[in-house]
């Protein structure tokens, strides 16, 4: 069973489009995260959600909006895609008191 899953794995789209990436975790964790890995392989936090409340937003453009329909899902919606949004996006989850984070397989987004 996959602990943290993401769909799609690859996403190619044109500038200006709106797209969503989905994340699901079956670990019963109460906190989920989105990280972005840029072309230089640097990984940086974008959002984290705890019990459906956004608790951190690291100066991410408001074109990016996380949406959590329930505790097991944290989707990432991106409006008006730009070339610079091309990256690999990783979803992760953790549970209070257990610290360790579990990562999904990543979604490679290419904006042309």
């Amino acid at each position: 069973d996959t602990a943290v899953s993401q769909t799609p794995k690859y996403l190619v789209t044109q500038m200006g489009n709106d797209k969503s990436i989905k994340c699901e975790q079956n670990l019963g964790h109460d906190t989920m995260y989105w990280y972005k890995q840029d072309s230089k392989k640097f990984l940086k936090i974008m959002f984290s959600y705890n019990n459906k409340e956004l608790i951190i937003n690291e100066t991410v453009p408001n074109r990016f909006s996380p949406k959590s329909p329930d505790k097991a899902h944290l989707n990432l919606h991106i409006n008006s895609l730009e070339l610079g949004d091309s990256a690999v996006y990783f979803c992760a989850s953790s549970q209070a008191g257990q610290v360790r984070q579990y990562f999904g397989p990543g979604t490679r987004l290419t904006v042309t």
Partner: protein
Amino acid sequence: GIQVEQSPPDLILQEGANSTLRCNFSDSVNNLQWFHQNPWGQLINLFYIPSGTKQNGRLSATTVATERYSLLYISSSQTTDSGVYFCAVERYSGNTPLVFGKGTRLSVIA
């Protein structure tokens, strides 16, 4: 915020050689994880090791929390060990995001 520095940035090894990767961090941490990103982009968790020593097959890791560093040892390297190794830390205990180092890119050649 907390700073994480990894060294070396790049490493080329002959198959069968041993190596040590280092991670220094600028403040006390509650969580430290080592990851391997394989050539297909998957992030594989190797160790959760905020302190102490752990071993898993040919890999082992040691974190000396009081001196703010962690070491990842790879013995008898194989070509499948190639990829990027990341160290990531979390300062607080309340499900806060990980701060990643820039990684060590390892290439193991046959």
